[in-house]
């Protein structure tokens, strides 16, 4: 076999693997363009005339608009707060190494290692006692708190990589601390900030359990809608679910496409650098 044919075969195999992993996702995307009988048809329908009625109905549903708005605002606000606050702390951890640095970094990380139901139980008790359940502000701040560990870890790694000479030059030339942090350090750790922003965004966007337990009608996002409003009038409304699912999983997939170079650093708490 010639080299070119071998390479073509190899590339076809790689594509086959990628498509196999994507097949279940593809199936729900396909279903979202079907009518209800087509989704439930046996044998499964592969070729059909796509309908956009599911999407039209979805966008006109008030509960979808409400929950989608919650999803977007919660994830954007929480992540912005978390990254801003974490950047300052990461700078301090990296530059001044206060006595408890290692201990604090350890505690921060262990928050993220805890099973969700164990992490939320104490917060639930507190929220019930204080009457903070189903409050949008309390929900946002909780998500911000939960995004902090990841952000501090990832940003500290990046700030550690910036040479202290920059700080020194800044100090010698009379720069204020604000300038050193915001104008000298921030631009150099830009990739870390982007990675922290997008991976926390995906986390909050996909999060279900916390919202289900300490949230309510004011705060619940699309995953809560997906998990709790499955059946309508006895049967499961697959046209609604498939179009809702398709819309909702699109942003994370686009993030993987556009920010592929941050994927590695984002999936490993910033402990592995590089691209694939």
């Amino acid at each position, binding site marked *: 076999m010639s080299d070119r044919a071998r390479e073509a075969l190899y590339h076809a195999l790689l594509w086959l693997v*990628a498509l196999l992993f994507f097949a279940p996702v593809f199936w729900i995307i396909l279903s979202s363009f079907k009518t209800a009988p087509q989704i439930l048809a046996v044998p499964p329908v592969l070729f059909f005339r796509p309908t956009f009625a599911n999407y039209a109905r979805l966008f006109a549903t008030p509960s979808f608009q409400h929950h989608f708005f919650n999803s977007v605002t919660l994830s954007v606000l929480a992540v912005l707060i978390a990254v801003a606050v974490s950047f300052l702390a990461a700078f301090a951890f990296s530059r001044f190494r206060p006595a408890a640095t290692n201990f604090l970094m350890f505690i921060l990380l262990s928050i993220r290692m805890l099973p969700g139901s164990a992490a939320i139980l104490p917060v639930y008790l507190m929220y019930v006692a204080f009457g903070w359940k189903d409050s949008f502000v309390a929900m946002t*701040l909780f998500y911000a708190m939960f995004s902090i560990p990841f952000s501090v870890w990832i940003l500290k790694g990046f700030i550690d990589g910036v040479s202290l000479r920059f700080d020194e030059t800044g100090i010698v030339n009379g720069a204020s601390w604000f300038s050193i942090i915001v104008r000298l350090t921030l631009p150099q750790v830009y990739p870390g900030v982007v990675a922290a922003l997008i991976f926390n965004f995906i986390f909050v966007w996909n999060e279900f359990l916390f919202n289900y337990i300490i949230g309510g009608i004011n705060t619940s996002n699309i995953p809560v809608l997906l998990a709790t409003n499955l059946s309508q009038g006895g049967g499961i409304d697959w046209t609604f679910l498939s179009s809702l699912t398709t819309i909702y*999983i699109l942003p994370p997939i686009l993030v993987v496409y556009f920010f592929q170079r941050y994927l590695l650093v984002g999936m490993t708490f910033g402990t*592995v650098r590089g691209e694939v």
Partner: protein
Amino acid sequence: MAGSADATAATSSRRLLAHRPQRGLLTFLGRREVLPTLLIAPVLIFFIIWNTIPTLWLLGLSFYRFSLTSGRPPIYSGLYNYTSILNDSSTWFDLSRTFVFVVLAVGIETVLGFLLGLLFWGSNRLPGRRVALTLLFAPMVVTPVAAGTFWRLIYDPTFGVLDWFIRLSGFPAVRFLSDANFAFWSVLAVDIWMWTPFMVLMAMAALASVPKAELEAAEIDRLTWFQRFRLVILYHGKFILMLGLLLRTIDAFKTMDLIFDMTFGGPGTATELIAMTLFRRAFEDFNMGSSSALAVILLLISIAFTATFLYVLYLRERKVAAA
């Protein structure tokens, strides 16, 4: 050498920081003793309100008998909650089920992920590589609850596409999620689908860290494939692989959303992993004293995981420093 130069730079910059002229409030806030505290303060406030206080609350409550539904005040009961959890065989069943789930999921994902990583090693000239990798990595960023939803459609015994294939090949239809013999394996399969891409990513990163020159040297020395794998690839890639393995183990231990959406721990307790057990005790039975104790036990397990993770990181840093 580089290390000592950096250290000198650090001390000299610290000395510089300490000797800034002092003018007014801003300068005071900018002083070395004040600034770090000021910068860390917001994170600490978040941390104390949303983590320290609730955790202490949880710890305290774990020594009390307290149910949210009874309306009675908590009654101090010492270690009763802990002993009753540890003497309850169902807790041990759930823990061992979780253990089997974690070992099988992580084991299969690691082997499969590494093999696929090897396959994708030479993929630099793949046409449409970025799209292909996006499709491959999509499962791990897809909303778990959404994934649970569409796997329910695929697994459905009457109109699911998987059962259609099975019936087509002449076998009786399988009730993947409602048959107690199959539910555990069906959920495991979804977890493998979802997280093998993560191990592929880690394997690709590990393989990318292997120097080309050493591989060529190994080829010239006519090392067998197994020797090349053990002496060259594993030597350079083992830290990244270890980190991947650990992160995945921790995550598999936390599996919850998928189960919630697909089976809710059922049928019976066939898919009840420990996170789900805690959910049921806390938010269905509202038995807060006993579930607090279980949460404390899980917290201790997580701290052990975290310590292991940091130890591996520390080993890598020491190796980098020695090199």
